[in-house]
C-alpha cells in the first residue's frame, strides 16, 4: 500500500528537457564523429610509432608555420561565433556581422588548406606516395569535409537569421557543430604536423 500512497503524491508537471532536442541530437552526432576521428588518430599513431622514420625519407616537410597561422584563423572564427551568440541573445540584428565574419574566416581556412594541398602535391606528397601521405590527406581531408559541412550549417543559420526565422535551438546546434570542427583542429595539427 505504501507504493500507492507515494504514487498519489506525484506532482505531474510537463517535463522540461535539459537540452533542446536539436542540441542533444547534434551532441550525439558529434560524439560519434569524435569516435571516428579517434579511430583515425589511433590508427595513425600506431603506424607512425611502428615506422622507421617520420616523415619517411624523400617526402616533403609539412608547412608547419603556415598551418599554425591558419589554425589561428580557425580559432578566430570560433571566437566570432561566440560573439555572434552573445549578440543574438541581446539583439538578433547585431548577430549578423560576427556570424558572417566567422563564416568568412572558416571559408578562408578551408581555401588555405586546399592551397597547401596543391603545393604539397606539386612537391610529391600524394595520397599514394607513402603511408605518411595517405594518412595526411585522409585525416586533413576528413576534417576539411567536416569544415565544409560546418560552413553549410552556419550558412543555413545565417540565411535564417537574415530572414528573422532563426530559432535559438537551431542556432545552438549549429554552434555545437562548428565548435567541434574548430576544437578538433588543434588536436589534429598537433598530432599530424608536429
Amino acid at each position, binding site marked *: *500500500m505504501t*507504493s*500507492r500512497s507515494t*504514487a*498519489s503524491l*506525484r506532482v*505531474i*508537471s*510537463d*517535463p522540461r*528537457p*535539459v*537540452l*533542446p*532536442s536539436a542540441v*542533444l*541530437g547534434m551532441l*550525439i*552526432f558529434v*560524439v*560519434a*564523429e*569524435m*569516435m*571516428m*576521428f*579517434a*579511430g*583515425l588518430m*589511433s*590508427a595513425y599513431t*600506431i*603506424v607512425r610509432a*611502428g*615506422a622507421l622514420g617520420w616523415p*619517411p625519407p624523400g617526402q616533403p616537410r609539412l608547412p608547419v608555420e603556415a598551418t599554425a597561422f591558419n589554425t589561428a584563423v580557425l580559432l578566430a572564427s570560433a571566437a566570432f561565433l561566440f560573439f555572434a551568440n552573445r549578440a543574438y541573445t541581446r539583439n538578433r540584428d547585431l548577430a549578423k556581422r560576427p556570424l558572417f565574419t566567422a563564416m568568412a574566416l572558416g571559408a578562408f581556412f578551408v581555401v588555405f588548406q586546399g592551397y597547401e594541398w596543391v603545393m604539397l602535391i606539386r612537391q610529391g606528397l600524394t*595520397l*599514394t606516395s*607513402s*603511408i605518411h601521405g*595517405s*594518412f595526411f590527406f*585522409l585525416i586533413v581531408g*576528413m576534417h576539411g569535409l567536416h569544415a565544409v559541412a560546418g560552413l553549410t550549417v552556419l550558412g543555413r543559420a545565417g540565411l535564417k537569421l537574415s530572414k*528573422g*526565422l532563426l*530559432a535559438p535551438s537551431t542556432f545552438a546546434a549549429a554552434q555545437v557543430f562548428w565548435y567541434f570542427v574548430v576544437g578538433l583542429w588543434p588536436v589534429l595539427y598537433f598530432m599530424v604536423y608536429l
Partner: protein
Amino acid sequence: MAESIPADAMHAHDDHHHTEQSIWSKYVFSTDHKMIAMQYMFTGMAMALIGGFMAYAFRMQLAFPGIDVPGYGTVTASDYNALVTNHGTIMIFWVAMPVLIAAFGNYLIPLMVGCDDMVFPRLNRLSYQIFLLSAIVLIASFFVPGGGFGGAWTAYPPLSAKSQYSLTALGSSFWLVAVALEFTAFLLGGINFVTTAMNARAPGMKIFDIPIVVWMIVVASILFMSSVGPLIAGAVMLFMDQNVGTAFFDPDKGGDPILWQHLFWFFGHPEVYVVLLPAMGITAEIMCVFARKKMFAYKTFLYTTFATGILSFTVWAHHQFVAGIDPRMANIFTVTTLLISIPIAEMCFIYIATLYGGSIRLTTPMLWALAFVAEFLIGGVTGIFLGASGADIYFHDTYFVLAHFHYTFFPIAIIGTFAGFTYWFPKMFGKMMNDTLGKIHFWGTIIPFNFIFIPLFVLGAAGQHRRIYNYEHFPELAGVEMQDMRVLATVSMLVMLVFQLVFFYNCFISWKKKQKDAGKNPWKANTLEWTTDSPPPHGNWPELPTVYRGPYEYSVPGREEDYFPQNVPD
C-alpha cells in the same frame, strides 16, 4: 518568431487528423514512426529470408558436397565464400539491427514514452531510405562481374583489400559501401531514439518510469554510436586501399593489416550488445506481463546494463588471440571478457527472480521469451571457453566458435524478434494471432535449432575448421561420423525452415481476419502503448497520456484487477 508558432501548431494538428493520405505518402514517404517501423520490420524479414536461403544453399553443399541444390544449383567454391560472407553480413546488419533496434525502437519508443512521433520525423524517414538503399547495394553486389564479396563478414585485409586475392574487385567495394550506408542509416535512427526517449516523454514519466525495453534500445543506440566511428574510419581506409591505391593495411608499404582487426572489433564487440540489449528488453517486458509480477530489481537491471555497455568496449581483442597480439595483452582481454559475463548472468538471474512466484501464462510470446533466456545461456556459457585465451587458441576458427555465436545471435535476432512480434502483433494490426499455430511454430523452430547447432559444437571440438567448402578434401575431417553430424545439422535446418511457413501462414490468416478482435489491451499490460487503439492512429492518442506510476505494477495488493496501467490516476 511569435507568428511562426501558431503556424507550426496548425501544421501538427493538420498532420495528425488528416485521414485521406495518398498511398504514396502513407506507405512510402511516410514520416509516421509506426509506418517506418513496419518498413524496417518487413525489409528486415525479407532480408532474413534471403540470408536464410543462403544458409540453405551452403549447408546443403556441406552435407551433400557437389549436389545440385534445389532452387540454387551447384555451389562453386567462390559461390560458397560469397554465400557465407553475405549470410553473416545480412543476418547481423540487415536483420538483427533493423528489426530489433530500428523496427522495435521506432514502433515502441514513441508509444511507450507517450508522445505522438519521433523528435526528428524527417530524419527518421531519411534513415529508412538510406537503409533501403544499402540493402539494394548489397543485393546488387551479387550481380556485378566477379560476384559477391567472399572474404568473410569481418573483411580482414589483405583478402578484402586486394582484388588479386579476393577476385571480387567490385563485389568487395559494393559490400563495403552497403555496410557504410547501413551505418549511416542507424546513426540517424540512433540520434532519434535517444533524443526522443530523453526529451519527449509524457508528463509525469520520470526517468525510472521508462519501460525497460525503451531503456535497452537507448543504451544499445548509445553503444552503437560510440563504437561505430572507428569502423567508419576503417571502412574509409579499406575503401581507399581497394580503389585509390593507398596502403593503410599493406605491410609492404608501411601499413598494418592488424589495424583493421582492431578497428573492426572495436565496433564488432559492442555490436553484440547493441543487438542483445533490445532482445533482453523485449524479454523483460513479456516476462513481467505473463508472470503478472512487478519486474524484480528494475534499477539493478538498468545499472547492470550500463556496466555491460562500458565493459563491452574493453573486450574486443579476444577475437584476435591468434592474430599475433602480445600474450600479456591477451591476458588482460581474457580477464575483461570473463568479467563481462557477470553482468549478463546477473540479468538472467533477474529474469528468474521475476518469474519466481508469478502466475505464469504460457502464451506464445512467453514461450519465446523463456526460450530466449534458456538458449542464450548456452551461447553465453560456451563463450567462456572462447574468452579464455588458452582454450581459444585451439577453438579459434572452428565450428565451436560458429555454434557459440549462433547460440547467441539466433536467440537475439530470431527468438527475440518472434517474441516481440507475437507480443506486439495485436497492437500493430489490431488482431490476435492464432495461439495454437504460434505454439506449433515455436516448437518447430526451437527443437530443430538445437539439433542444428549442438552437432556443430561437437564437430568444432573435434577440430572441424570453418571456411572449408568441401570436407572430402580433408581426410581427417571427412569421416563418416563427422559427415553424419553435418547431415543431421542440415536436415534439422530444413525442418526449421519448413516450420517458418507456419509462421507466415499464421501472420497471413491473422492479418486477413475481418474483425479486429484484439481491443486496446489484450494482454492486460501496464505500459502506455496498450492505452491507445490497436492499431494506433496517426498521432497515437487523441489526447496524449499522463503517467502516474512505473511500468510494472502488476498484482498490486488491494486492487481488484491484477494490473495498474501507467496512465490511470489513483
